[in-house]
């Protein structure tokens, strides 16, 4: 019997009082894809950091291919044949691909020989595993998908036999993710061992051979993927039954709340980001906008939220609203009944160094309810904040805690509580569940549906196609600043939407992958798409 590629025995690691990993044991056989799944803070990343030499385990042993191995630093991990693709790429942006690949793995004191050797080897790897990247391109000019390939190439160039990928598809389009899994499959066929860390159950079910579930620092189960189900995995992850599908009644749309006509937005660099977008949203429906990040959705949200200026007409409840930004801002939009849950909660949704109660009134802080002249009614705000936090299941429900001390899901609930409790006619929601745990996702989705059922209009922007498909009553796909088309969620599928997201309409059965890739690349560089 072959020895496992990786075997961990009784790994424990504590950070102060927090036990990040508790007595974890795991065996991964060579030539397999092993998934590790768990919520944020379950200890997945800590475990992988121990394997990559970032932390030293307090207790426990690591065996690589049957040999007991000490991994005190990254150098040792690389020497043991372990390569890691981090969620946030570790690339030098203004270096070329080949420079990034050789960094730390140069052959001698001079660069030229290393570079020419790496060039040859990159070409070989590209042919072998569908990993083609221009070796002389600067990283900052590459799409995210290509940057990720560079990370994989870095590991392979260092002769890695074991590849760890941390949330690899979080930043990819469906087409790019498909390509990634083709690459991983090629690697598996060559006998490489792959550890896939993710929170997406679908990926685990589709692509892994075995899967381990982590919860609160412990390994709760390791099973063959073919012998489990998404429901079982979700329950193991969260520790209770989770509703994976969103339960909702058909929408009952009423009068038009928001009407957008020929909206155009030009950014500070003079590039037109939104190129003539028109749509209506009715009371009691969720209008979902899908699309790869950077195709104008953010700018659209910012204009609607009063953070950016634009041209065109927007009417809210029949009244036209100012788009020049001269007579309006986020606060006046809120006064018009537009609530806004921004895409980036850290930069736009919250002030992380402020307390939770302070964060529950931003944008509404001049309301008579919260302020008297220049003074805030602190006692009233704190009391109300506590109540809001209870209602929205924010844990812990302590208003005086700073926003940065809450987990991602709880931070998002604070923002939602602030916007929803003001009872807006229209709620703009951007990336509501980015970096949010499965348990919190369930709650957030239910809140959005509840708001819809109360007869509010909701504009949902998300890069998570699953989310768009399960929540929306109508789906629009944005590409290159335009709406490529509207679909009924009941009559479309991921494949069709994925192609629309790449700017390709029609023929979903025979996708032209090259066209998809070229289009995405072109838009990323601010050029016109090549295929329509």
């Amino acid at each position, binding site marked *: 019997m072959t020895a496992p590629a990786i075997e961990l025995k009784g790994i424990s690691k504590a950070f102060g009082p927090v036990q990040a990993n508790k007595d974890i044991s795991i065996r991964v056989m060579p030539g397999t894809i092993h998934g590790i799944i768990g919520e944020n803070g379950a200890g997945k990343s800590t475990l992988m950091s121990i394997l990559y030499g970032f932390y030293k385990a307090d207790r426990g042993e690591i065996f690589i291919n049957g040999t007991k191995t000490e991994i005190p630093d990254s150098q040792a991990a690389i020497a043991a044949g372990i390569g890691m693709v981090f969620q946030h790429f570790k*690339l030098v942006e203004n*270096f070329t691909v080949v420079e990034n690949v050789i960094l730390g793995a140069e052959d001698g*004191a001079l*660069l030229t020989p290393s570079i020419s050797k790496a060039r040859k080897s990159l070409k070989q790897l590209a042919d072998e595993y569908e990993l083609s990247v221009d070796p002389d391109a600067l990283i900052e000019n590459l799409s995210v998908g290509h940057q990720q390939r560079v990370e994989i190439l870095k590991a392979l160039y260092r002769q890695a036999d074991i590849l760890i990928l941390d949330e690899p598809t979080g930043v990819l389009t469906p087409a790019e993710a498909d390509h990634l899994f083709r690459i991983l499959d090629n690697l598996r066929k060559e006998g490489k061992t792959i550890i896939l860390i993710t929170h997406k159950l679908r990926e685990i079910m589709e692509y892994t051979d075995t899967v381990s579930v982590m919860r609160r620092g412990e390994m709760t189960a390791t099973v063959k993927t073919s012998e489990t189900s998404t429901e079982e995995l979700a329950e193991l992850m969260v520790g209770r039954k989770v509703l994976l599908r969103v339960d909702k009644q058909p929408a009952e749309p009423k009068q038009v709340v928001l009407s957008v006509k020929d909206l155009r937005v030009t950014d500070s660099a003079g590039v037109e980001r939104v190129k003539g977008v028109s749509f209506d949203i009715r009371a009691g429906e969720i209008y979902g906008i899908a699309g790869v990040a950077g195709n104008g959705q953010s700018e659209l949200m910012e204009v609607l939220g009063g953070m950016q200026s634009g041209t065109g007409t927007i009417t809210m409840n029949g009244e036209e609203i100012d788009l020049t930004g001269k007579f309006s801002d986020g606060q006046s939009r809120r006064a018009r009944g537009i609530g806004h849950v921004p895409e980036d909660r850290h930069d736009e949704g919250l002030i992380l160094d402020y307390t939770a109660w302070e964060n529950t009134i931003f944008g509404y802080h001049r309301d008579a309810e919260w302020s008297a002249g220049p003074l805030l009614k602190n006692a009233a705000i704190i009391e109300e904040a506590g109540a809001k936090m209870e209602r929205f299941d924010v844990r812990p429900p302590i208003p005086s805690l700073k926003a940065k001390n809450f987990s991602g899901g709880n931070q998002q609930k604070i923002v939602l509580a602030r916007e929803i409790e003001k009872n807006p006619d229209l709620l703009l929601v951007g990336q509501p569940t980015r970096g949010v745990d499965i348990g919190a996702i369930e709650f957030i989705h239910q809140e959005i549906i509840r708001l819809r059922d109360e007869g509010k209009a909701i504009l949902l922007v998300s890069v998570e196609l699953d989310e768009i498909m399960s929540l929306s009553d109508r789906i629009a796909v944005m590409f290159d600043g335009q709406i490529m088309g509207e679909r009924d969620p009941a009559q479309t599928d991921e494949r069709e939407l994925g192609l629309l997201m790449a700017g390709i309409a029609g023929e979903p059965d025979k996708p032209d992958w090259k066209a998809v890739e070229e289009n995405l690349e072109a838009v990323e560089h601010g050029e016109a798409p090549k295929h329509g």
Partner: protein
Amino acid sequence: MDFMTILQVLDSTVRLAIPLLLACLAGLFSERAGIFDIGLEGKMLIAAFFSAAIAYTTGSVWLGLLAGIAASLVLSVLHGVASITFRGNQLISGVAINFLAAGMTVLIAQDWFAQGGRTPSLSGAARFNPVTLPFAESLQGVPVLGPIYYELISGHTILVYLGFLTVPLTWWILYRTRFGLRLRAVGENPAAVDTAGVSVVGLRYAAVLICGVLCGIAGAYLATALQAGFVKDMSAGRGYIALAALIFAKWRPWYALMSTLLFGFLQAVALRPDLIQATIGIKVQVQLLDALPYILTVIILAGFVGKAIPPRAGGEPYVKER
């Protein structure tokens, strides 16, 4: 203005640009590795003092140079310990170094030599003397090229030639060696260097030490080549001007040469108010001329000369993320 006068101005441009150039390249190494260093000024000053003091006591300018470099290195290590090991604020550490150097040099000078915070004048082998390049005398008669060779190219101290050689050397190290690749990487994204299994701390210390050596040479040049001895605050803001030149040069070696020559030229012009008057026909206040390099510095720092993108990880202590 005749040809000879132009040559004289250019000649003093070269002499005045060299300390700026060395300090600028010193800053380049440090900042390319992600360690901001406003302590260039202090390091030059302390090197100036110790080089003059040791050159005077031993009678050997080379020992003086070594002493200057050593003194500058001590402050570099201090900056390294504060900003790399203890992840302190790099600006504060730099400011502290400048104050330390300004106070210490005068204090020790007074204690050792009792001449009001200066060293005695250096002469002979205790100073770097001009080197006459081969054939400079005999070729002097050749029209145009002869005087250029004799006045402008020949007749500088060895440190001037060394300083100019540092430019291609720096370029070569940065762009053609493994060390240079890693150095540039650590200033842009230390996490990339760390995950590649290379020590971020080691690279940054190396950069800070190179910075110390170059500042040491720059300071020694001030006291033992440009002047004949140390006087209080003789670095006169050159460390800050070098930083401005570094931004102007967008952190690139050849541009650094150009920008420090420009600053050197302004300083050279300030020494010849008579020429200005003869050229533009208006008498310009000497004080205004003296202020020119500093005014240009302010203009550069205010960002009026195009966008300069500093190394992305500059000024940030590196902490491994969890």
